[in-house]
């Protein structure tokens, strides 16, 4: 009987010790797991901050140097000079920025995006780009025509007259207005193609729409605002972004890799 009592007592202590050790193990694992989660979170946040600050840096360079102004709303407007004379400055600054980020982190900005400086309106998938940035052609190419129409506003320092605006072909998708020196102006609405001449009949600009693709061409210096009017509501916020392969972040020490577009607006 005494032996059984002794064994029960030993068993009791044994169970108490096991419970104690079990708790110790649970606490220890909880410590470890909690600390790991915090470390993971901090690492992820570090990568996120670097990502966002790189994009912010790109936006600063774009705003200061590209010569393109974007206004975002239900209508998206891109304004720039054509031909855009900021191409070399933009390329140089982008290349410098890429070298700078590369020197400290494995963050790569695709400098070739300055070749056509394509800007995507998301989620509508409308591409605004240059045939060769710095050259004389702008194009707008929608995947589907999910907006009302194009409206192109041209400003020139030449004098316009009553025959300056020459529109042809009927299309409800394009309106063009032009303003010249000394308060002169003209416009052509619902046209398929449009030519702008000055008062000495020199061709200043050519605007055309074919297969829903808008082309604006001018070898003479003009200021052109391309309006993509009344975007359809797709239930998501509208963003203006670069190509999808613009930014590559490979922070291997954190196990973090990301390839993405850069949000411009």
């Amino acid at each position: 009987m005494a032996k059984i009592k002794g064994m029960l007592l030993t068993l009791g202590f044994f169970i108490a010790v096991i419970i104690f050790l079990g708790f110790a193990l649970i606490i220890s694992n909880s410590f470890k797991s909690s600390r790991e989660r915090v470390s993971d979170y901090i690492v992820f946040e570090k990568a996120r901050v670097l990502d966002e600050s790189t994009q912010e840096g790109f936006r600063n360079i774009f705003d200061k140097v590209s010569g393109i102004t974007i206004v975002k709303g239900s209508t998206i407007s891109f304004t720039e000079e054509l031909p855009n004379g900021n191409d070399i400055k933009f390329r140089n600054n982008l290349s410098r920025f890429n070298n700078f980020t590369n020197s400290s982190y494995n963050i790569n900005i695709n400098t070739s995006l300055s070749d056509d400086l394509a800007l995507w309106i998301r989620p509508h998938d409308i591409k605004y780009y240059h045939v060769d940035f710095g050259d004389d052609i702008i194009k707008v190419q929608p995947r589907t025509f999910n907006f009302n129409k194009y409206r192109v506003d041209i400003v020139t320092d030449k004098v316009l007259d009553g025959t300056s605006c020459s529109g042809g072909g009927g299309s409800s998708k394009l309106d063009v207005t032009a303003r010249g020196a000394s308060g002169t102006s003209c416009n052509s609405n619902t046209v398929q193609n449009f030519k702008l001449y000055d008062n000495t009949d020199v061709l200043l600009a050519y605007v055309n729409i074919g297969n829903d693709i808008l082309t604006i061409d001018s070898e003479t210096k003009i200021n052109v605002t391309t309006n993509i009017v009344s975007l359809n509501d797709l239930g998501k916020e509208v963003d203006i972004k670069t190509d999808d392969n613009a930014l590559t972040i490979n922070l291997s020490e954190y196990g973090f890799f990301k390839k993405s577009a850069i949000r411009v607006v």
Partner: protein
Amino acid sequence: MEVVKLFWNLPCGNKGQVFSLDAVIAIFLVMIVLISSFFMVNKENEENYELLQQFNLGNDIFTVLDVNGKLNSLNRNSIKTSIETILPKNFDYSFRLECEHKIVESNRSVSSTLVKGEKIVVTNNLDLCIMRYGIWPK
């Protein structure tokens, strides 16, 4: 003394007291384990939350300064003033702004801080910099 002796030498034996004592000790041990468990788990979480708070606070403050153009001057005193305007009084800070041709830093070294943040800064004059920073309770 006689009474105590009598008490410990009951005719039915001492097993009642031993088991009671055993049960009390067991309950006492379990309570200690439970209380210390909760205490330690909470303490650990507090420490982690503090780290996260410092880290997020640092990110927020230096992002606000960047977005508001307060880093554009690349001037130490101007940056310090801007930080001290928005940093809660019970926190201290350090920063190091490493630009292409200039380094601006606070009195205290960033490397001594427990949790460091860093971000890329492009100023209005297109100076390219890396901002390293740390925030901790005073």
